[in-house]
């Protein structure tokens, strides 16, 4: 464990509790339960994840050095995190030298204030936005709205979500829970100047969005973007996209404000040669996405005259402080782990209550925003929102061992929630799971360790002490045969016996 901060003023703080979207309203099991009842959403999601999964598999298949690229990608990110202070300083001076202005934000509150001030000082009451998870994480749109500034999402899916007064359900295709008829209705209801005869052909819907946004792009004064990568050596930023709304936002306005998490840095420009191969194939299952933009500071006569970069902590340094959990900061947000996750496929993204759903969300969200000791903190339930089947690890382009991180977080949660009845059960689960992971590591995430067994989206009875815990929950999970095998193995029995003994001694 790596939670000793001897001689230091204390661990870095987590993201603040009441600003932004890193915590749901209710624990995962009950949120998931509601999602499971929505059969339309389940069908849409099933179709989407299945399609992207197959495309990804085909695209990865044709790259003979895929595994070597993954190893390089993982190492580049790990190296960047290991040298983060030095790289951040280098990045800051490179951006500054090229005419950019760098701002630092300790948390969501500070980042929102910085962006709002930049927009207000330029006299703008509207900003254009290009899909950025960081600004969603900090709740920027809501904060701007409270200050009288409207933020217009320009990514088609984000626009659908925004006009529908909704939350995104998928990192990559946020409106995947809406079908064409629903989208048409949303446009007719909410889009100013909409053609009243609009039909629900995706072509017509995209054309309508093009018309609506084009007028806005032409007059854009301020745009806010995220960034997929920041290059420490050169101060270059990069946005990877499909529709061209990113290019519009990065090119047309007078002022560009980019909000970037501090973990998005890679050391050198040449490192892009790895990520520009890993990301599109893992993400949309394409050899390359239609458009990628790169820019460094400001360029005379080309694009925005002013460039501001907001470097965001918001729980990232707290995540970095955990020697195990920091691995999650390597994530390049490709969403491949979502598309292969049997739990995500059934519950959808909203059940996770966070900007970051799915397997990566289950490990990143509790680390960014913390898991509180109270038994009903939704984030404390996230590490359990997995069957530990290991599919997420297999597809991750930067080799994040999500199953092991989940087990580690379960363990941490249990450590902190001693003395409650639930903690007792969770601790037993956790102990069992730790052994399971060791075993899993040997067998590389075979379908083992399905503590939350059941075969058809329903929990069936499990042996004590899990029984009490699982009976309160109704999680969709794949079959648990392999867990049972482990359970009946000598190792499994020993782990459980140990857990019971500790329980009897009242050690937890």
């Amino acid at each position, binding site marked *: 464990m790596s939670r000793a901060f001897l001689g230091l003023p204390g661990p870095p703080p987590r993201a603040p509790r009441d600003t932004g979207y890193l915590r749901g309203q209710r624990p995962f099991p009950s949120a998931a339960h509601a999602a499971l009842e929505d059969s339309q959403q389940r069908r849409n999601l099933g179709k989407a994840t299945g399609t992207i999964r197959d495309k990804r598999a085909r695209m990865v298949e044709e790259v003979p050095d895929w595994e*070597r690229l993954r190893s390089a990608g993982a190492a580049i990110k790990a190296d960047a995190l290991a040298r983060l202070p030095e790289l951040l300083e280098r990045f800051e001076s490179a951006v500054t030298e090229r005419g950019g202005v760098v701002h630092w934000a300790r948390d969501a509150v500070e980042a929102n204030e910085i962006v709002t001030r930049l927009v207000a000082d330029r006299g703008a009451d509207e900003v254009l936005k290009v899909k950025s998870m960081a600004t969603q994480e900090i709740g920027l749109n809501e904060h701007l709205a409270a200050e009288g500034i409207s933020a217009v999402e320009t990514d088609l899916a984000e626009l659908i979500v925004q006009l529908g007064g909704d939350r995104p359900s998928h990192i990559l295709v946020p409106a995947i829970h809406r079908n064409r008829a629903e989208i048409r209705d949303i446009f007719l209801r909410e889009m100013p100047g909409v053609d009243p005869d609009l039909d629900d052909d*995706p072509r017509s819907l995209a054309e309508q969005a093009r018309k609506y946004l084009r007028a806005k792009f032409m007059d854009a004064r301020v745009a806010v973007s995220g960034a997929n990568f920041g290059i420490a050596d050169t101060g270059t930023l990069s946005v990877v996209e499909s529709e061209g*709304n990113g290019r519009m936002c990065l090119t047309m306005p007078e002022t560009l404000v980019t909000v970037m998490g501090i973990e998005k840095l890679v050391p050198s420009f040449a490192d892009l040669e790895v990520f520009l191969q890993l990301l599109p194939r893992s993400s949309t299952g394409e050899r390359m996405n239609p458009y990628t933009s*790169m820019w460094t500071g400001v360029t005379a006569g080309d694009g925005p005259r002013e460039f501001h970069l907001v470097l965001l902590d918001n729980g990232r340094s707290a995540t970095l402080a955990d020697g195990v959990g920091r691995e999650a900061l390597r994530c390049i947000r490709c969403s491949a782990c979502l598309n292969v996750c049997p739990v995500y496929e059934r519950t959808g993204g909203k059940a996770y209550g966070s900007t970051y759903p799915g397997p990566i969300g289950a490990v990143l969200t509790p680390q960014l925003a913390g898991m509180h000791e109270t038994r009903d903190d939704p984030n404390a339930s996230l590490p359990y929102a997995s069957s530990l089947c290991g599919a997420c690890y297999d597809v991750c382009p930067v080799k994040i061992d999500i199953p092991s991180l989940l087990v580690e977080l379960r363990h941490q949660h249990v450590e902190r929630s001693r003395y409650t009845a639930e903690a007792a059960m969770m601790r037993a689960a956790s102990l069992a799971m730790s052994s399971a992971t060791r075993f899993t590591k040997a067998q590389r995430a075979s379908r083992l360790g399905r503590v939350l067994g059941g075969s058809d989206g329903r929990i069936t009875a499990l042996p004590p002490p899990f029984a009490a815990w699982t009976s309160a929950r109704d999680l969709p999970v794949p079959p648990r045969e392999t867990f049972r095998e482990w359970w009946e193995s000598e190792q499994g029995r020993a782990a459980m016996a140990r857990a019971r003994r500790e329980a009897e001694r009242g050690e937890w």
Partner: protein
Amino acid sequence: MVNARDVVLGRVREALAAAPPRPVEIPRDYRRERGLSDQRRLDMVVDRLTEYGAGVYRCRAEETATTVAAALSDARRIVVPPGLDRSWLAEFSGSVEVDSGEFSVRALDEVDGVLTSSAVTCAETGTVFLDASSDQGRRALTLVPDLHVCVVELSSVVAGIPEAVAELEPTRPITMISGPSATSDIELDRVEGVHGPRTLRVVVRVDR
């Protein structure tokens, strides 16, 4: 008062001190230099561009003007960057305006198309890289008009992404283009042409 910069950097340093990371070796044994023949690179890039829905025109250097005219056949008024080789337009019968920085974006929205050169192209992914040189122009030029005709020299087509990235000057504004703009946001149905040019045509010059 401590500023946010020092606080964040301080936290990051403490975080690493709390659990010191091991130094990392980066394995660079992935494919970086692939010497594919001209024919292989040509076949590959044509295949990829076609798959993306881009129009592809092959020509020899002396056929450039006629090929460009064919690629621009449905455009009456086009705009070109200041450094473009004007001989490419010898056979084009429409009107040509040269982008001065004064050309407003609304004016760009009025023209039918834009003709540019390109910096480097990756065959394996069918990706054309623009770097805002004087024969490619500022970024708005290749973004706002609805038709983009782009001339690619086969000698500037490289096999893979590492070879292409190595050709770039990082601090220039760079745009990577792999087919026309597209979205799959509605029920995963692919729709081509959202905000970028809805038509992309690539003229590949096989010699020079």
